[in-house]
């Protein structure tokens, strides 16, 4: 099952040269591997360990979250909206599942 990713720009349509906040939310339980289930067995770790953000094919940010990141994590960046382009977010978890989402940044 692919991991679901949500991407939002704030403001949604920035003016050229303005700062834009990119908010990425990934729907994932992010099991840290330290929690126990009802019968006392350790729940194996299953968290996202790599998130790559590219803009028009160029890598602009890479996040490596450890087990200390919350469930359904938020990753937020700020960048200068110099030109319109396509933002692509890919992520990978410890079980080898991947997720991908593209979002178009349009200027006002």
């Amino acid at each position: 099952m692919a991991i679901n990713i949500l991407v939002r720009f704030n403001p949604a349509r920035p003016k050229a040269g303005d700062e834009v906040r990119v908010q990425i939310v990934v729907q994932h339980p992010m099991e840290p591997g330290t929690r126990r289930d009802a019968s006392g067995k350790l729940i194996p770790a299953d968290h996202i360990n790599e998130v790559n953000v590219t803009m028009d094919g160029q890598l602009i940010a890479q996040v490596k979250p450890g087990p200390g990141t919350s469930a359904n994590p938020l990753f937020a960046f700020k960048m200068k909206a110099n030109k319109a382009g396509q933002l692509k977010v890919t992520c990978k978890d410890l079980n080898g599942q991947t997720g991908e989402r593209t979002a178009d940044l349009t200027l006002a």
Partner: protein
Amino acid sequence: MDRRTFLKASAGAVAGTVLANQLTSALAQGGLEGEDIANLEKGLRQVLGKSFKDLTPSQQVKLVAPTIAESGANVPVEIEASLPADQVKAIHCFCDKNANPLLFTVVLNGVLPYYATRVRVAETAPVRAVVETKDGRLLMASQSVRVTVGGCG
């Protein structure tokens, strides 16, 4: 005193003042609630290959985190560095008492030196933002987060 010796002497004096300033700010940063440098060093060694002494507390790094978090499972953290975007290489975040002290690492390339996320904090302990610059400096900001319910199990 000729010009050369004067320059040497004044350079020494300036360096001394800078060092003293760093020392006082390091002392000011110390004594945070729930501090556990030994555990933190473990994570620092693993990720950066550095020890706690190599980190410079800096006003240029701004860490926004709640002083009291209801649930340690979901603590919003915001890190901002007042440095030019092209000088910042990566942002690391550590928490002293977590079983795995490294919370996350972000490598930035072309975005502004800002990052926001939500982290887990096991128990009351300082959260430390470490900004790695291109010229190898490690700037740190710390803030203690008091946790009522732990977030790691």
